[in-house]
């Protein structure tokens, strides 16, 4: 009897160690769980500006009016905005870049980020790609990217020739809180909530352990498109890698210092195009009107049949509105 128990214990331990040795990977190994960033993979297109390395690429004739796409987040990337490159065939020089610490761009320490720093990055991105002094510059921002676009014209109203804002989540702290309250209601008993929170006991990356932190945030992304979500998101949209540290840094900045990107918007007299998705219950015409009211000249357009992720899921409806606006200002 004793021998049988001993044999069983040996077999059980052997199986455990066999399983433990199969496909053994390092949890923070580069490229194991999330794609490499531009400083880790030289085959990725990138630019060096303002003391960092950004994942970036362009489409179209460099001598055409420039359209810079600003992705959402903070921390997300431009992968789900690539439909915008169609405008390169319609007379625009389209620039995509992953913002500092986001997507496949280089990571930095959490305490290094500031709003002014990402505004300076945008200035340098424009300078990097600009081919002649009078080249017209348009910004097209989605979600956080639209907030960033508004922040830019708030600081530099003379530098931008046209601005497209697709559902900015809040042009100041109060509006951001209002939008968050409307869009992020959760049921604590639901599967979606468990999917979002339960992984915290499996993975706990330390500060600046970017591979783990980015992966952990990425795998929780299913929360945004869960059935019944208020933002009208029907399913997953593609991304490369979430910059968790920059997201947490800007969340801390918003909570601790607040922000207001509206203080100088009355100086921006060019018409601004606001887009909102018909199916986003958290945004809608009223919220768009609230945000558009900070600009002297604006136009609001509803994009039919879509929610917050309108550029990926309903580009065919976004495209004609955007093209008409750009062509008017070209």
């Amino acid at each position, binding site marked *: 009897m004793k021998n049988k128990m001993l044999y069983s214990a040996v077999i059980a331990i052997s199986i455990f160690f066999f399983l433990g040795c199969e496909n053994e990977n390092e949890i923070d190994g580069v490229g194991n769980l999330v794609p490499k960033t531009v400083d880790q993979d030289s085959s990725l297109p990138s630019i060096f500006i303002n003391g960092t390395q950004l994942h970036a690429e362009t489409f179209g004739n460099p001598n055409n009016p420039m359209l810079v796409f600003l992705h959402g987040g903070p921390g997300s990337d431009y992968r789900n905005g690539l439909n915008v490159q169609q405008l390169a065939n319609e007379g625009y020089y389209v620039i995509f870049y992953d913002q500092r610490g986001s997507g496949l761009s280089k990571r930095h320490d959490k305490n290094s980020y500031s709003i002014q720093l990402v505004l300076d990055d945008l200035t340098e991105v424009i300078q990097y790609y600009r081919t002649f002094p009078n080249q017209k510059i348009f910004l097209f921002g989605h979600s956080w990217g639209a907030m960033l676009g508004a922040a830019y014209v708030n600081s530099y109203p003379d530098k931008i020739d046209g601005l497209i804002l697709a559902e900015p989540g809040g042009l100041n702290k109060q509006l951001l809180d209002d939008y968050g309250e409307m869009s992020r209601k959760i049921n604590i008993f639901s599967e979606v909530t468990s999917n979002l929170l339960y992984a915290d006991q499996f993975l*706990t990356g330390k500060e600046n352990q970017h591979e783990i932190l980015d992966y952990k945030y990425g795998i929780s992304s299913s929360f945004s498109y869960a059935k019944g979500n208020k933002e009208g998101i029907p399913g997953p949209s593609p991304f490369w890698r979430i910059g968790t540290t920059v997201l947490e840094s800007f969340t801390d900045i918003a909570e601790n210092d607040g922000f207001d990107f509206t203080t100088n918007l009355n100086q921006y007299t060019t018409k601004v195009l606001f887009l909102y998705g018909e199916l986003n219950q958290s945004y809608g015409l009223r919220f768009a009107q609230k945000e558009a009211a900070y600009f002297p000249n604006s136009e609001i357009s509803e994009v039919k049949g879509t929610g917050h992720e309108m550029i990926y899921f309903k580009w065919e409806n976004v495209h004609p509105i955007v093209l008409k606006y750009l062509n008017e200002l070209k």
Partner: protein
Amino acid sequence: MKAILVFITFLISLFTSNFSQAQNINWENLKNNEKHILNANAGWEYSFVYGFSYGYHLKTKMPIILESSISLASGEVIFDDFKTKIGGQINVFQIKNFRFNAAIHGIYRRYENPLLTLQNFGADASTTIGYYKPKWFVAGEFGFDKAIVTHFKHSDIYKEVYPDVKNGWFEPTTGGNFNFGIQGGYSFARSDLTLRAGKVITEDFKSEPLIPFYLQIGYNYKLD
């Protein structure tokens, strides 16, 4: 009937448990002849969880309880997110009504969402120091939960995000959280009503889970 109840509770707790700590025991109320402790609990630990545990009170000079537990995360799919634990706790020493207790458990837990499935082997250790009376107790607790080795299996949705993602076992440890808080309870007849609450912080003491608190209510029933 009693034997069946004990056996079923043991099996459920062994094969199915989440961040349920050791059973909250009123050591002052635990009688020598009470061998089996059945427990049901619910509360917030990372997400909303409910659990069952079974404890076996050993007849030793220093009070020891061997225990197993299961906790399940709330949601439409029941057995995709759960935690099981097996281990024990011991009343190390006593000065009048003050008692110092320690617990250690081995852990198996599982997590699944549309992007991946995780299976983890881990361990936790905790201590409680408290004041125990036959009718009530209150104690402070401190514990550490380590996710030692984890198996990752990614779904097609995540492979769309990153086609070169690796599946398999990942080392070294994939995570660890400290918890500290208080627990207390009211005892009557063969029963205890218990309450635990506290804070969770990750092992680097700089970051924390999305919801960094826990709260658990529980009920113990003791049998001879």
